[in-house]
C-alpha cells in the first residue's frame, strides 16, 4: 500500500511536467507580442526591446523553460507584468474564495446527488425517478451563468433573502460566509449534481439486481440499510470516480460563477490575467489548477481501497 502511494505520487511528476511545458509554451503559441502589449500604444521600439530583454524573451526557448521550471520548483512563480506583485502573493490573496466555493459546492453536490440517485434507483420507473432524471437533464443543459442570474434575481433581488454578490471571508463567521456562497454553490453545482445523480442511479440499478441484495432482504435488513449500506458501498467506486473527474467541471465553472457573483477569487484573477495577457499570472493559476486536479484524482484512487476490499495495490 505505502509503495503504491509512493509510486502514484512519483507518477504525477511527468504529468505535472507536461502541464508545465504546455503552460510555458502558451507564451509562444498565443498570437501577439507580449512585450509590445505591455509597453502599450505610445511605446517606442526601444521601449519594447527593453521590456523584451527584461522578460528574457530574447533567449532560446529551452533555456528559458529550464530557468522558469527551476524557479517554480522553489515556489517562485514570477512577478505579474501588470501589478508587479509576485504571482504567489496574488494567488494567496485570491485562493480562499475559490477554495471555499469549490469545497462547499462539492459537499453540497455529493450530499444532494447521491441520495437522489439512490432513491431514483430504488423507485425506478415511478414519478420520483422521472423527476430526478428530468432534473439531471436540466442540470446538464442549462449553463451556469443562466442558473446564477436566475437564482440571484429570485433569492437576492425579489425575495431579498441573500446577498446578491460578493464574498465574506470565513474568518468573519460561518453564516456570513455561507450566505454569500450558497447561491454561487447551487449555481455551480447544477451540472455536478446531475452528473453524480445519474451515475449513482445507473450503478445502483445494477447493484440492486445482485444476489447479495436478496440475501440482505432475506436476513430481515431494512430498506435504508439495504440501500445505503449493502448497495451503496458496492456502487461507490464508479460514483467516487465521477466525483473526481467532475472537479474539472468545478474548476471551469468557478471562473464563470465568480464573474456572475462578483467573487474576488482565482477565477476572476484568471479572466483578468487573460484579458491583460499577464502571462506569469496565467501560468501560475493554470499550474495550480492542474496540480489540484491531479491531487484530487490521486486521493480518489486511494479511496477505492476503502470501499472495495478486492482492490489491492
Amino acid at each position, binding site marked *: 500500500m505505502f509503495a503504491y502511494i509512493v509510486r502514484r505520487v512519483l507518477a504525477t511528476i511527468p504529468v505535472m511536467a507536461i502541464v508545465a511545458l504546455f503552460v510555458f509554451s502558451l507564451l509562444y503559441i498565443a498570437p501577439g507580442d507580449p512585450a509590445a502589449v505591455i509597453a502599450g500604444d505610445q511605446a517606442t521600439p526601444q521601449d519594447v526591446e527593453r521590456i523584451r530583454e527584461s522578460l528574457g524573451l530574447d533567449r532560446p526557448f529551452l533555456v528559458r523553460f529550464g530557468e522558469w521550471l527551476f524557479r517554480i520548483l522553489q515556489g517562485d512563480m514570477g512577478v505579474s507584468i501588470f501589478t508587479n506583485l509576485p504571482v504567489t502573493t496574488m494567488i494567496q490573496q485570491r485562493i480562499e474564495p475559490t477554495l471555499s466555493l469549490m469545497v462547499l459546492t462539492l459537499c453540497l453536490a455529493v450530499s444532494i446527488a447521491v441520495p437522489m440517485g439512490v432513491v431514483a434507483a430504488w423507485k425506478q420507473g415511478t414519478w420520483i425517478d422521472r423527476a430526478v432524471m428530468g432534473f439531471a437533464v436540466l442540470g446538464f443543459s442549462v449553463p451556469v451563468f443562466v442558473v446564477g442570474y436566475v437564482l440571484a434575481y429570485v433569492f437576492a433581488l425579489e425575495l431579498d433573502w441573500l446577498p446578491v454578490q460578493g464574498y465574506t471571508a470565513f474568518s468573519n463567521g460561518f453564516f456570513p460566509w455561507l450566505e454569500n456562497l450558497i447561491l454561487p454553490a447551487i449555481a455551480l453545482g447544477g451540472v455536478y449534481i446531475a452528473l453524480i445523480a445519474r451515475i449513482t442511479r445507473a450503478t445502483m440499478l445494477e447493484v440492486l439486481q*445482485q*444476489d*447479495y441484495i*436478496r*440475501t*440482505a*432482504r*432475506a*436476513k*430481515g*435488513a*431494512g430498506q435504508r440499510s439495504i440501500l445505503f*449500506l*449493502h448497495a451503496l*458501498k*458496492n456502487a461507490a467506486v464508479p460514483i467516487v470516480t465521477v466525483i473526481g473527474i467532475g472537479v474539472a467541471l468545478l474548476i471551469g465553472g468557478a471562473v464563470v460563477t465568480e464573474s456572475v457573483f462578483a467573487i474576488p477569487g482565482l477565477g476572476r484573477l484568471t479572466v483578468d490575467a487573460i484579458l491583460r495577457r499577464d502571462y506569469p499570472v496565467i501560468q501560475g493559476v493554470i499550474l495550480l489548477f492542474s496540480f489540484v486536479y491531479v491531487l484530487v484524482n490521486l486521493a480518489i484512487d486511494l479511496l477505492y481501497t476503502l*470501499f*472495495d*476490499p*478486492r482492490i489491492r495495490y
Partner: protein
Amino acid sequence: MALLEVDNLQTHFRTPDGVNRAVDGVSFSVNAGETLAIVGESGCGKSVTAMSILRLIPEPPGKIAGAIRFEGRNLLELSDREMRGIRGNEISMIFQEPMTSLNPVLTVGRQIGETLRLHQGLNAKEAEEKAVEMLTLVGIPEPARRVREYPHQLSGGMRQRVMIAIALACNPKLLIADEPTTALDVTIQAQILELMRDLKHRVGAAIVLITHDLGVVAEVAERVVVMYAGRKVEEAAVGPLFRTPRHPYTQGLLGSMPKLGSSLHGEETRLAEIPGLVPSLKQKIPGCVFASRCPHSTELCIQVAPALEEKAPGHVAACHYAMKEGALAA
C-alpha cells in the same frame, strides 16, 4: 399444528406479454423439525415458491395470493416491518450461489453479525463474538481470523458455510435452502449436506429443501413434494416416492437418474429422458399440465385437470390414471 402451512399459493408475474403463472395453486405443510424436499426441473416454480414464503418476490411485477401460515399467522397479511422481524430470525434462507450471495464489500463477521444485531439487539462486539462461534459451528478453521476476512478470500464451499452460519445465527424454526449444493463440487456437496443434517439435529430447525437433485433428496429429506409447471403433482414420504412413484412425471424424473454400477453403453440401461419441454406458464392450461409430455395421456387428460388424490396412505398424486395401488395401469 404444522409449523408452516402453504395453502393454495399462487405467485403470478405480470409481463408485457401476459401473466406468468410461476406458481399456480400449490399447497403443502411442514412440521416442526421435519425436512421437506421440493423437487422439479428448472422453471417448475420451486424457487419462486421458496421466495414467496419469505415474500422476497418483488411486487410488482409479482403478485402472491393464497395463504402462507407460519405458526398460525398468515405471512401474507403481515406488515413489511413484521415481515422483516421474521426474515433471518424465525425463517431464514440460503441460496444457490454462494459466490454471489455474500456481499463482497463487507466482512464475513459483519454479515453474520448483521442478523444478530437486527434480531437479537447485540452490539458490534457481542455480534462479532457470536459470529466467531457460528463460524466454529459450521466448521470453518481459524474462525477468529476468518471473521475479519471478505468473501473473495474464501472458497465456494467456505462461503456456503458462511451462508449457513448467517441463516442459523438466530436459531430459526424454519430454514429454506434453495439449491444449496448445486453450485458446489461433489465432494463439497457431501460436506455441506452432512453439515446441514448435523446442524438440523442440533438446532432442531425444520428444513424446506429446494432441489432438482434426487440424490440429495434421498440423502436428507423425509417427505417430498414434486412440482411441475407451477403445480404440485405428487407428494409422499421419501421411501414410497422412490419405490412406487405414482405420477408419470415423477416416474420420468426417477428414470432419468443415472444409477451407480450400470453401464451407460448397454442398450437396456439407456437413461430414460422425458421428451419435450415444460409448457409456457403464460396460458391457462385447462387439463393436466404434464399431458403434452406424458406417454399415457388421453383426451381426458387434455380436457380435465386431475385433482390431487390420495393414492395410498400419505401419498397423493394428481393423475387420472395413477392407480390406488402400484404403478400406472397402462
